[in-house]
């Protein structure tokens, strides 16, 4: 008989780090299943399967990295892996990537995330940066070129809004929301973005589950998502787009996913509730500023990474006794959150572009007559003699009076799903671009170019469809070049391809 000694207390909560990570994994799996089903149904089995394979690639890369690390540092491999929770990082990293990332890009980013984002700092619990965000930053900055471009070409909501500089006007907002099937569809997640960030309802359910299980605080996600909404809704109201502008900011991109799964990462965030509120508000304001003013379509990732760096400072700010120093804590929370909000509001009010000033959106700038709108920026020229097989043009002769012939040309678009579109290799039906092109049969040059159906992404592709851009084709033959429009390369190419198809038809090719 032995009576042992252990320091008090000798009573422990049934909750463990294992159970927290288990709940988190369950939620992430639910999000993954949704993504697989959505991509499988909307974009074909192949794409659905790709989500699964990407996930497997990342998890395997993460676990292998950890296994090697624990072997190299002479630790118990099984125990090390089970208490390092690398799979959570891998799943989150995959879910915040887009479906067309390359397998090797994802694998290398995962390895870097696990090794340099976590293990070298001392492993689980010691890392400064959210490892998944760290890995995604690597993936975006270093492996963008390896993305599969033929797989998916629809723009995400944040990219579309970025294309119009996040203008807060009601018509531009309504148009963008409409192109994704309305707010209802955005809530249900029937559109493409990063793999895991679309279904708002599912993400909110995950949030409720995790809070109910006491795995995360309610303060962080609520303050993060709430601040994004309040800040953008105020700007929306001030600029005429209304509350819907705030709702769009919350539903589009990674705000909900980041708010539920990344802001709440306990390791890289402050340990006190006031600290977490400051962290969440700071990250939210940065997210919105990055969206408005940076080169990135979405700002969630970098806002989280930046706030990770401030975590030790925030922790220091709130060192003390939460009861005795309550007044001081309240002052500091209010001072720091309100100043963040003010900065956000100022930038929103004065830094956000408006339609009247310098919009480059073709849709919102109809007064292109006489070249009055000098908004179109032309870039690298495209030769009409190129091979445009990828654009899959179909030509139909409408009239031919011996001197002039009019052709109706359709080409594969780069916009949204359209049941009447032309089948692409991925089995998906894209919306088409259509044009009527008149050709002078003697000189084999174009005399008129009229785009009749625009099937690409509004806010991006329509930069290339201004009358000014269409005028470029007049007088051009197969041996000429046409300037492409910066920021709308795919649409430019589609337009050129149609012109080439008509010219080839006129030449009897």
């Amino acid at each position: 008989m032995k009576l042992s000694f252990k320091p008090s207390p000798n009573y422990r909560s049934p909750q463990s780090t294992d159970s927290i990570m288990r709940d988190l994994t369950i939620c992430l799996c639910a999000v993954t299943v949704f993504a697989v089903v959505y991509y499988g149904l909307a974009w074909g089995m192949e794409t659905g399967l790709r989500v699964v394979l990407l996930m497997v690639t990342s998890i395997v890369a993460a676990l292998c990295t950890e296994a090697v690390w624990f072997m190299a540092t002479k630790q118990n491999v099984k125990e090390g892996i089970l208490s390092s929770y690398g799979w959570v990082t891998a799943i989150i990293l995959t879910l915040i990537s887009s479906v067309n990332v390359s397998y090797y890009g994802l694998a290398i980013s995962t390895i870097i995330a696990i090794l340099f984002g976590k293990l070298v700092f001392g492993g689980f619990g010691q890392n400064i940066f959210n490892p998944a965000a760290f890995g995604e930053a690597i993936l975006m900055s270093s492996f963008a070129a390896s993305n599969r471009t033929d797989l998916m070409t629809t723009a995400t909501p944040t990219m579309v809004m970025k294309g119009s500089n996040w203008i807060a006007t009601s018509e531009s907002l309504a148009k963008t929301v409409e192109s994704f099937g309305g707010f209802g569809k955005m809530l249900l997640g029937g559109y493409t973005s990063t793999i895991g960030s679309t279904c708002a309802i599912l993400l909110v359910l995950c949030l409720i589950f995790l809070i109910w299980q006491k795995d995360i605080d309610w303060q962080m996600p609520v303050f993060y998502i709430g601040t994004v909404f309040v800040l953008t809704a105020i700007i929306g109201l001030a600029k005429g787009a209304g509350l819907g502008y705030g709702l769009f900011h919350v539903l589009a991109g990674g705000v909900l996913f980041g708010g539920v799964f990344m802001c709440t990462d306990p390791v890289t965030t402050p340990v006190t509730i006031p600290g977490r509120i400051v962290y969440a508000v700071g990250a939210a304001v940065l997210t919105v500023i990055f969206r408005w003013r940076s080169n990135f379509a979405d700002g969630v990732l970098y806002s989280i990474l930046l706030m990770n760096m401030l975590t030790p400072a925030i922790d220091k700010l709130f060192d003390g006794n939460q009861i005795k120093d309550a007044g001081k804590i309240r002052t500091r929370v209010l001072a720091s959150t309100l100043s963040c909000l003010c900065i956000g509001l100022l930038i929103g009010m004065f830094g956000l572009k408006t339609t009247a000033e310098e919009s480059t959106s073709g849709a919102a700038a109809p007064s292109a007559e006489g070249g009055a709108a000098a908004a179109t920026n032309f870039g690298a020229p495209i030769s009409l003699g190129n091979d445009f097989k990828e654009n899959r043009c179909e030509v139909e002769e409408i009239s031919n009076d011996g001197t002039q012939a009019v052709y109706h040309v359709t080409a594969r678009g780069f916009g949204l799903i359209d049941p009447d579109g032309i089948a692409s290799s991925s089995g998906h039906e894209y919306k088409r671009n259509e044009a009527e092109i008149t050709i002078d049969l003697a000189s084999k040059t174009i005399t008129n170019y009229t785009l009749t159906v625009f099937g690409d992404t509004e806010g991006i592709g329509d930069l290339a469809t201004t009358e000014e851009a269409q005028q470029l084709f007049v007088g051009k033959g197969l041996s000429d070049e046409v300037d492409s429009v910066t920021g709308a390369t795919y649409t430019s190419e589609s337009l050129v391809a149609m012109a080439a198809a008509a010219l080839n038809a006129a030449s009897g090719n």
Partner: protein
Amino acid sequence: MSLFTGPMNEHLDGHKELTAHDEVLHLENPETVWIPLVNGAAPCTPLVNVGDEVKVGTKIAERNDHFYLPLFSPVSGVVTAIEKKMTASMKMADHLRIQNDRKGTISKPFAPIDYENASWEELHEFVKNAGMLGLGGAGFPTYVKYANPENVDLLIINGVECEPYLTADYKNMMENLKLLKAGTLAFHKLSKAKKACVSVKEDKKDLIEKLKETFAGTEIEVRTVKDVYPAGWERTLVYMLTGKRYDKLPIEAGCIVNNASTAIALGDAMLNGMPITKKYVTVSGDGVAKPANVVVLVGTPAHDIIEACGGYTSDDCLLIAGGPMMGSTIPNDQFVIGPASNGLTVFKNEPVKVVKCLRCGKCTESCPSGLEPVRINSAEKVKDIETLKKLDINSCIECGLCSYVCPSKIDVTEGVRRAKRYMALVK
């Protein structure tokens, strides 16, 4: 609780069903008792010599420094030795060993008092001479609390018993409602408080009903608190009942807090002329065969009580003097039940999987003192004196909640203790 703090408490599974509804076991005839000659950290002077005969109620020792506290014999028999022994708070102290002659001869040390008609001074003197002390665990002489009652708004008789597993106070109250009523009314009179209440957890429905019956027609209210830990700690209880915080003593918030079993002991002294010789003690946990509440004499060794409850269930056990949150494990079972003991918790010693801190902050959210245990632990690791000074470590009462909630199963409370010890050396 506000927007900027966590709940500062936590609902624990109390496992009170193990012992709450069973018969109380009476073990009031031990062969030998050892009376610890200490009160808190202060030694008590023996008033008897080896070889002297004593009766139940004979004054055998007293504390006589700046406080006065008499100790009385719980048995009749012969004093056979004064020997050093470890107490339930793991300190060596002199104990009076008394051999029980099993005759139970009683010599009442004082006469009963009619508390309703006695003057305030008479009543206060009675409490002092009857050796009343805080039975909730602190063992602080009771009369001191009532020495200068001015502007007391609320007297709180604390029957919350928030330690998991312990049901001794509950049982004591259920069985001694008459004594509780007398003691509470006397304390109310002593405190000159505007209001008085008996406070218990809201889930104790049967007890609440009985208390309401008992106190019907008196000024005493029955007030309930949420079933959370540490609702029974003075500061938390005062805050829950009044919304007030205080710096050092509850009187700053206009409150006096006394344990319910102390009120019962006072009732016993006033009505029956009996000093504190017996204790209700809960013996519970998965390490003991038959968990039960026992009534034992002060001075009974833990070993005898565990034996009476069917012995240990495992070859490797943790024996805890008190409840599992604040009670400390003691690696031998020869220590005795003191007047302030209220439980023995026995667990099978099972390994705990400890992982690294994930900085979840649950310890900062649950800390009833408003501390940041995770910050204290990391500052202690690197001996960051400046930060430790800011973190107000001496407000920690070692309630154990930070370790309880820790999902990584780190001994967070022990880290704070280390920090306290380190800072005590630095100063």
